[in-house]
């Protein structure tokens, strides 16, 4: 039995282990999964001197309250998160993007994400987790991944296999920027929609609905009118696809999405905006802006360079 472990005092709303996700499985119906906000996932690992593809704890809205037992270890939280660290006789308010050293008996209480959805807790070491298809990412719908594919529960104990010997404290000044417009590329069924419907899609505001999770983000707003067919023959999906079913309300496919679907695709979110899209909480307003493929590719390259830059400065 490992002597270094976490105990879950309060699990939070949707707390899971995530890593880089799993690929080459869409054809059997298994989605990518992995950390929703990839940039914040990578930064969390870098802040605690982990390999960048290590497993972290992802939480949504209210996070977990955990107690640590074992030898000294570093921890860091990324995202826009309110949390505290309780040591023997003090409790400090924690800052995101800064690593802390915790020791036997210390507690981390992640109260909530602030006007955003996902946050990440990384520990400087390696959790003892089951891997399925080279990933420990938990997919709660298919019960795939570590922890029997289930979200973390109260009273659970999570062992660490290894603690990093590099315990340097790290800090960075990253700020999560919000964007007003989500850039999209025209979908393969764009012409299924009326001229009025297309105009609504690009000009009107949509609201993120409460019925959003790791599988998809449902939007509410003016209805987008379909003039051809509200069903297509089921075909493959990727994350970021915006489907419009018969009721006229768009649904954006997110990391745990069903691998095939039969609703017309009006657009696809550009990869550059995916990390920021997933952080939009229920009630947030979304406006779509059309870009072409070559601009989308260039913007992603710049975003990726910026991510690498941020990581290299930590």
């Amino acid at each position: 039995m490992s002597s270094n472990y976490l105990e879950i005092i309060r699990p939070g709303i949707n707390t899971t282990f995530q890593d880089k996700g799993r690929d080459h499985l869409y054809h059997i119906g298994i989605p990518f999964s992995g950390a929703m906000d990839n940039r914040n996932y990578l930064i969390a690992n870098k802040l605690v001197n982990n390999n960048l593809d290590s497993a972290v704890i992802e939480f949504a809205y209210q996070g977990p309250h955990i107690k640590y037992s074992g030898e000294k270890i570093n921890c860091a939280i990324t995202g826009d998160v309110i949390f505290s660290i309780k040591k023997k006789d003090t409790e400090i308010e924690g800052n995101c993007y800064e690593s802390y050293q915790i020791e036997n008996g210390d507690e981390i209480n992640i109260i909530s994400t602030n006007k955003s959805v996902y946050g990440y807790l990384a520990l400087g070491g390696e959790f003892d987790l089951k891997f399925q298809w080279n990933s420990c990412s938990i997919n709660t719908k298919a019960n795939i991944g570590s922890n029997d594919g289930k979200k973390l529960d109260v009273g659970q104990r999570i062992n660490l296999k290894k603690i990093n010997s590099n315990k340097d404290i790290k800090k960075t000044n990253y700020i999560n920027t919000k964007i007003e417009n989500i850039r999209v590329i025209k979908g393969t069924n764009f012409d299924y929609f009326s001229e009025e419907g297309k105009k609504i899609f690009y000009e009107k505001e949509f609201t993120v609905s409460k019925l959003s999770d790791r599988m998809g983000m449902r939007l509410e707003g003016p209805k987008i009118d379909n003039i051809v067919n509200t069903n297509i023959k089921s075909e493959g999906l990727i994350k970021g696809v915006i489907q419009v079913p018969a009721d006229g309300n768009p649904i954006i496919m997110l990391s745990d999405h069903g691998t095939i679907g039969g609703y017309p695709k009006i657009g696809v979110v550009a990869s550059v905006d995916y990390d920021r899209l997933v952080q939009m909480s229920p009630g947030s307003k979304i406006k779509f802006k059309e870009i072409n493929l070559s601009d989308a590719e260039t913007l992603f390259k710049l975003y990726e360079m910026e991510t690498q830059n941020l990581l290299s400065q930590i």
Partner: protein
Amino acid sequence: MIKNISNLGDAALYCDFGDEVNKSINSQVIKYFKTIKEKKFEGINNLTPSYNKLIISYDLKKTNFKEVKNYVENINAEESIDINSKKLEIPVCCHENFSMDIKRLEEILKLSREKILENFLNKEYFCYMTGFIAGMPFLGDLDENMRAQRLETPRVKVPKGSVALTEQFANIYTFESPGGWNILGNTPLDVFDSSKEDKPNLINPGDTVIFKEITLDQYKNYNE
């Protein structure tokens, strides 16, 4: 043959093989799928074959639309003629405990329960694709007089193992999930097993499936 290649967003290729749903077009899709999968092109991270489309998604950090399109256009999918398909018998129990939508099907199809089962069982169905949820096979084609629309309001929970129909297709719910297909029976077989990482799916695209009826007793005592 691929009729047209376009982009689905900035990280996937949309290969269109036509609009019809039939075995011959789908076999083409599966041939391309198997050929590309075997060749392991750097940067391609997923392939999703469906009735008449193949979606190829890639890591935008490693490659881009132009490169993958160029690669796919120059593939000779005829090389791999062997789609390596199996013939499988799936036991299904259509006892009233399981056939939740039999009354609805009787009404829509204007056929008796006996006739519906006779039309459905002991026939060969082709697996066009798997997905939506892990391992779910899309099988076809049902007889013309067996085609019903989805439920108006999908069920929040369809039991694991449910064998269900919609339009010209049958499928099997590999685990409990929401769903709107007409449920006719239930199989005790594990059609998806995540502990078998190399072969989690019992049924794969290109396979042929025959449903064989079993009684409730046989269902309860079923032992793989």
